[in-house]
């Protein structure tokens, strides 16, 4: 079997795997598998999956460089779009099910009462341009380097998402701290790699001279 066809098989498999959290949630919702406060479960479970998908998406590049599995890049867009998908469900849960379109309350929440709401909102909004420009056409339209620049917004989106989680919890900061740590490692790797890259380039230049 050629390498190409093997990857072709993996794509739908990963796609279906990414749907598991939402299918599982729907199953629990309609079979009484949620807690006494189902809204809270829907909100919390979609929320945590956004962060997971963002972290997984951000792991693709370091993994490719460390284990040299460059074909992983084929899944990056899909994983990022799933982060956006869970973000949308999470946001809709808040606006629709939790606040029931009470925009007065939502406004107060965001700007007056709950600072963690605004960080969550920022995290979601930052993902919108990334979802829109995720197509091949948009890469061509923007040009590779500009497109890449724009898509670095995912760093800020994830950071805002982690802060949102950290501010949300009452005292149990362990899980938000774990996500903050993962994000730090992933960003540090990028910084370190960029530094190495620049250094090797300058030595190459020296050698060339």
């Amino acid at each position, binding site marked *: 079997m050629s390498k190409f066809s093997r990857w072709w098989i993996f794509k739908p498999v990963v796609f279906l795997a990414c749907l598991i959290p939402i299918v599982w949630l729907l199953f629990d919702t*309609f079979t009484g598998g949620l807690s*006494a406060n*189902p809204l809270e479960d829907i909100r919390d479970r979609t929320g945590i999956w956004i962060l997971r998908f963002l972290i997984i998406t951000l792991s693709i590049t370091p993994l490719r460089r460390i284990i040299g599995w460059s074909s992983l890049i084929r899944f990056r867009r899909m994983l990022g779009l799933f982060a956006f998908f869970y973000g949308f469900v999470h946001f809709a849960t808040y606006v*629709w099910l939790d606040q029931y379109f009470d925009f007065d309350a939502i406004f*107060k929440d965001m700007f007056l009462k*709950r600072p963690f709401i605004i960080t969550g909102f920022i995290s979601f909004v930052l993902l919108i341009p990334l979802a829109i420009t995720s197509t091949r056409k948009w890469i061509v339209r923007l040009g590779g380097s500009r497109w890449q620049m724009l898509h670095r917004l995912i760093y800020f989106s994830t950071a805002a998402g982690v802060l949102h989680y950290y501010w949300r919890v*009452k*005292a149990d900061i362990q899980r938000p701290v774990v996500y903050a740590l993962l994000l730090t490692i992933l960003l540090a790797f990028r910084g370190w790699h960029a530094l190495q890259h620049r250094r090797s380039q300058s030595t190459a230049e020296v050698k060339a001279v």
Partner: protein
Amino acid sequence: MLIQRASDIASSEITPEDLYHSRREFIKTASALLGIAAAGTIAPGCTPNVGASPEPQAKKLGPYDTAEKANSFDDITHYNNYYEFGVDKSDPEKNSKKFQPKPWTVKVEGMCNKPGSYSFDDLIKGITVEDRIYRMRCVEAWSMVIPWQGVPLADVMKKLEPTSSAKYVEFKTLLDPNQYPEQRRSLFKVLDWPYFEGLRLDEATNPLALFATGLYGKPLPNQNGAPLRLITPWKYGFKGIKAIVNIRFTDKQPLNTWQQQAPNEYGFYANVNPKVDHPRWSQAQERRIGEFFKRPTLPFNGYSEQVARMYEGMDLRKNF
């Protein structure tokens, strides 16, 4: 000490009929909103009322009881904040199965005439266990209606004879890392253990204050604070300290665990107040467990008539 008789609060005052939804109805409403028809047929097995006892409403209501529909035994015992057993709402039920509420000793100390070590039975001996159907409003903006059994705290206080200089009473939860997984944790410790709480003495002797010993006619389940748990229904739920092993009378206003943890977010009084928001969320509304739409939160959780006089002249914004 002022003992007030509660006049019956008409249920219509508290639960608008049209707002009332059971959990099954929550699912239906949610499904309708999500555009999924006939959820009832999708979910034939939903809301198992595991272990639910006969409706306590069948009995005659006491003067302090609410006539609102009580939450199911299942909801009350599977959705708990009890950080000693874990931070998720489902943790207390899962992790409290081996907890030993018997034998139980409560140490009484400080400014009182009857200090000493009391067994659970000695502490409540001679006091009649009463039924109390109370609303419970959590600081997280959800609420339940719970049919407790317990002894009026005023009777326990009377028995312990606080001296005239005693103005406050402090309670402590058990400290036992062998039984409480979260107390074993050293990294990312959630709270400073043991959990402690305090009341003004007039609050502790208010007829609404209860030492709960049972729920739905059964011994108090471990995850609900067995064997002895404080209930002050006009205050946020976190005041309801669980598994009490220590009672201390003092003349100085004690701190409490959450106030110590975040003094800008939690105060000593913690009276339910829709006008004073928690810094991170509004307290104007609450979601009754089992209902879809939020309902307005009432001052003192609807118990103004019994408790408001204790706070006359106080700035409740400062004393939150």
